[in-house]
């Protein structure tokens, strides 16, 4: 598994930063320079280089704001995923330094320095590439979407969260359990999926301190005005995140968090138990199921579970590649159907408002289209099945002994069971 992402200044061709994933040497500068050169030469001919494919690799170029070029090389993943990753990386840059800094770009060295604090975030983003490699620490990331955890206590936590945001006078707040969103305010969900994702990752990256108070820019909502992103750790593995203006101070926020959650400690304790199953124990699934991925494409959130069986005795390590299979299945087979759908919604998957506007138009288009509703894979070792029902997509990983024709029914049943539970706040 190999992946490189590097950023080059469009005008001067000077490198800004470079990240890699996998056990490989850094790319020599000459190669980076040539890759950028090809893109630059194309620009002079009024052609825009998009991507190149070799047998196993994909190379993608993307220029942002006429200022920076992001170039990504990755093995084993589709070009769509790599492209989305480049977008995410750019949003991460905006999140860290703001769009103005990138646009003006007076001093490359300063830019480099400022972006350094974003490296952990970017490295985390790289984990969302599916490379089918076992030596991956984070199997569960899906590009452009944030991970959730479906605790049965979520609706209770939601009530606590509501009272908390009144105290801190901010609309934007969420609770993370193991870095996965348990519950969030309505305004939090109104942020762009990319923003939600980046904030969730930011909260858990470099997690050495109990609290964080970082100035950030929201790539869509406010790319040039900074917000404060504050996280407090309520319990180990439980964080409360919020976006605030200059006030209140960190101390006050910590205090409010204490006040709101101190008496509900047992709720939080039991909520943490849901990890690593990630969905309620009470929700039982068929014995043939060895992995679940539930996605809501319009909200940009997903839940992934690698051990849906209650009495899992197997080692977790051996089952983590299941997540990789599910994710690859999602990237290759499901997004093949879903992307198609989005294309007709003005091609803009990230801008929800435009999408809503286009909804009527979209429905009109629908007449000419047909939508994929289900898709499945049968491999030697396992089977995957996905059911698309409006915004919800459930991908299920079965063991290979399950009959192909029964997958449909089981998936339907499982999806119903998962989304009918109102307590989990899906």
């Amino acid at each position, binding site marked *: *598994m*190999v992946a490189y992402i590097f950023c080059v200044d469009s005008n001067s061709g000077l490198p800004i930063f470079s990240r890699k994933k996998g056990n490989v040497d850094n*790319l020599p500068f000459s*190669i980076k320079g*040539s*890759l950028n*050169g*090809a893109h630059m*030469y*194309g620009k002079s*001919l*009024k*052609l*825009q*280089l*998009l*991507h*190149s*494919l*070799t*047998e*196993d*690799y994909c*190379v993608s170029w993307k220029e942002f704001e006429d200022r920076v070029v992001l170039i990504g*090389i990755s*093995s*084993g993943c589709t070009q769509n995923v790599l492209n989305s990753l480049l977008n995410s990386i750019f949003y991460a840059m905006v999140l860290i330094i703001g769009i103005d800094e990138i646009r003006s770009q007076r001093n490359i060295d300063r830019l480099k320095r400022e972006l350094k604090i974003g490296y952990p975030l970017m490295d985390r983003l790289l984990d969302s590439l*599916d*490379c*089918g*490699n*076992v030596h991956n620490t984070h199997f569960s990331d899906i590009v452009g979407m944030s991970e959730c955890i479906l605790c049965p206590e979520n609706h209770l936590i939601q009530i606590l969260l509501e009272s908390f945001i009144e105290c801190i006078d901010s609309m934007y707040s969420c609770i993370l359990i193991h870095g996965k969103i348990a519950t969030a305010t309505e305004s939090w969900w109104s942020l762009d999926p990319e923003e939600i994702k980046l904030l969730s990752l930011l909260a858990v990256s470099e997690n050495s301190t109990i609290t964080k108070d970082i100035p950030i820019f929201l790539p869509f909502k406010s790319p040039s005005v900074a917000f404060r992103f504050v996280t407090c750790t309520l319990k180990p593995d439980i964080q409360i995140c919020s976006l605030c203006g200059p006030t209140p101070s960190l101390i006050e926020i910590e205090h409010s968090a204490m006040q709101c959650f101190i008496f509900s400690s047992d709720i939080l304790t039991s909520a943490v138990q849901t990890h690593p199953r990630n969905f309620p124990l009470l929700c039982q699934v068929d014995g043939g199921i060895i992995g679940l991925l539930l996605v809501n494409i319009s909200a940009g959130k997903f839940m992934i579970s690698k051990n849906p069986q209650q009495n899992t005795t197997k080692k977790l390590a051996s089952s983590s*590649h299941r997540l*990789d*299979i599910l994710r*690859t299945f999602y990237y*290759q*087979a499901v997004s*093949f*159907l879903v992307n198609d759908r989005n294309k007709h919604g003005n091609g803009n998957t990230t801008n929800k408002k435009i999408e809503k506007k286009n909804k009527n138009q979209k429905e009109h288009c*629908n*007449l*000419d*289209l*047909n*939508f*994929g*509703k*289900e*898709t*499945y*894979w*049968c*491999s*030697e*070792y396992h089977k995957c099945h996905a059911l698309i029902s409006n915004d919800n997509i459930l991908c299920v990983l079965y063991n290979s002994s399950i*009959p*192909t*024709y029964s997958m*449909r029914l089981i998936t339907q049943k499982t999806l119903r069971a998962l989304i009918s539970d109102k307590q989990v706040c899906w």
Partner: protein
Amino acid sequence: MNETGQIGKNYVRRNDDEQLSGEEDWSDSSYSSYYTDSDSSIPDWDSSVDERTGEVLYIECHPFVTHNIKDDKNEKEKCFSRKQTRRSTRGKFLRLLRRRDSKRYSKQNIKMSESELHNTNKVKFQDFQEGEEREVLLKVKNEATQRGHNFLIEPLLGINISTLSDGIRLMVAGFLPDSDAKYEKNIKIGDWLKSIDGIEVNFQNINAVFQQLSSKNEVLVKLQRVAGMDVTKDPPINVLNSQSSFVRKLTSFNSEEDEQFQELLCKFPLGVLYLDTDALDEMAPEYQDVIYCYPKPMQKNKLCNAKGIFLTLNHLLQDITKSPTKLTSLSFNNVLCHVAYLKFEKKLLLLMLPDNYAKPVEIESIVKEICRMLEFTYNTLDVFFMDNAQKADHTFSMFFAKVLNGGVWTGKLKIPEDISSIPPNDYVFEDLLLAIPTIELPNEAMIQIEDAMTELEACDYREWNEEPLDCQRIFTMLGSALFHSGYLLASHLIPDDLVDVNCFCKYQGILHLSKTEPLKTLIVWKEVFPTSCRSLNVPIFKLPDARRYLLIVGTGKDLLIVIMEAGGSTEPPEENAAPDPFYVEEAQATLAHLQELGIPELAGRFLELNIGHQPIPSTTSNKKKIDVSNLAKSPQGQSRDSLALNKKQEVTSILKRRNNDHAQTVYTSTYASVEDTYDVRSEDSESQGCGSEKSELSDDPIMGKKAENINIYESDNEESENGVDGSQMSNNSFDISEIKQMLLTETADVQPIQIATGAANVLYHYVQFDALEGILISPPEYKVESRTQKIVISSFRKCCQQIHGLFQNTIRFKDMSSQDMAKSVMNKSLIAIKEYGTMFECPFLDEKESKKNKISFWVIGRLFFSPHVREVYVCYNDAIPQNLIELAFKMNMGFCDS
């Protein structure tokens, strides 16, 4: 064994007189001496022989194209009679060889005058450019009725009339059957009909003139030969004005027109570039490394201007990823385009096409196909691009004209206004697989075909020569293949070569030609380099140092393709050999024989009857399901009966399947969701499936009365025995017409293998791709105009591209050595996928209330490994219960394993 010969004899006996008169006719032609002793005349295509390479591309169409007086029937007779004479003439083969020598001699010595000579002698009455005027007395048939004729003259004189290219002058376009005019040597198709009884005629006045004349018994018709010898350097061909523009485009190359076309092409983001990657030198002139470029001029060619990018990437990505670059996507003024790479040691071939014509997967296949075609015809791309630049221009101008017209072959080099008006091309799947669409005929027909082809390949001429020959043959046949309307009927070629031939025919437009134009005679002759003789990685045996030639003969919708080898066991190969008339005649006779047998009719019928002609039913699946199950529950009655009928057919269809050599996927169901019938059915089919004795089947009560009609196997079995007997019986006990009669009547009730039967069509499409055999089985093109159908097929193809792409991972991984596996950076989740399915839901668009009705359908691809890798793709209605599908797949598998 020697059926063709016998048949020839039979035929000739009937037509001897005619033939003799024909011979006399020819023999008093003023032609040079060495032809007079040979019994056959100079072949029509002789003037099409390329002086330099010996290649031939000769196309003659019905009814527009001229030159030859013989119509179909006559042509066949001629072929057969030649054989007859050949048989009676002693040492014909020797003579043939002698003739070849002398011909060669003539070529060397009077090369300059030869073509002229041919022209003057070829058509006896022809003057130089203008052509001679002739007057012919024709009888008027007054009793003729006039149905569907354009002109009154047609039934009266027995001549079909159309206009010459100016739209006013009249031309003889053909003859009605049994007309006297047909046998009149002075009237040739393509002649300008000048006057009748001294009255000048044209398009406007012909009917009026003829009304006056209709009372007469005889008329004097004045005709003039139209000069049409258009011998150009590349490929010289007899083009007449009346030729269809596609044929003209195919056969002639107008460099001036092409230049304009290229200029226009330059504004589109497309092109071909062949680069020398070694010639990278900073100091060198800008385009030094460009070996070939289309469209020209290079300065305006978008691909050529940007070549630096592709050269860099090709080199760079190889360094980074250790694998060659396949594709680059870019956008040109917001138009998405793709560039496909193909690397040959130090050369690089680039092809750029806009995305609305070719999706990334498609362009990769296209460039591979083009390369395959070029390697087949020119051995290496270097030879093609360096030495045959004009041919390359011709090939690519045709190709790009097709691209710009949304994948439709066009006769004219017309171009849309701008990039946005290029008609988008729908997803392509089947056409880009390296395999040949095949139709299967009943066994009895196959036996006849194979028999004829084998005989052709055997080159066993003992029977025709009473004395043993003491000379070597000129060619050995490596194999042959028969196509009808673009579909393969039978092949004796090595699969790789078959794919080569198919690529060649596809990109040279020959397949299109045979599908669309009423071909009269097609002869293609070319030196080729088949894959099987080119790339022997592990030389198990030493290939003879020989040359191979491709010979395609065609009439109507049929093509007979032969690959021949000169060298090795034959006479040493000759440099740039022209086709030998003897072998061309042989092939033509074989084809004529097959046509005589009624093979084209049979194939045509099988194409017609296939599922491509059934519309997708309108009702939603659910509704239907309920309907049917209600019916099933009603105890007795008509509906029940009809179901039972369906049932019978289904059983047969399963059986047919099982007895069929090229396995296809079967969907045995209609709305077989009906529980009870389904049970019965599956039992039946299984029990029958197990008993492989075919004779048992007819006894099966289920077959009932219908058995004789629908049990294809039964008739196959009997028939094939008959067929074998027939061909083995030595003497004239079997007349060809009898065989034809028998073949057609016996198969009249035989349905093509129908996979889904029942009242409504539930199987929308299927493709079986067999890379090893190079065979693709799929229903023929859809002729029903239906939006729903279009959408279904389009999503099928799109989905199949994706599925096929994923399967390649599995196939690749299977072939990988364990060392490579460890090193490979493949996504390990993708290495063992063997089935991939997707369900789509689409509104039914063929009715007004389209919003309410929806159809759901599955697109499923499965990969089979035994006995060899095959991919099967099907598209069927969601209403079919999955367990039936499983059953169908299982049976297919079971068949293959056994």
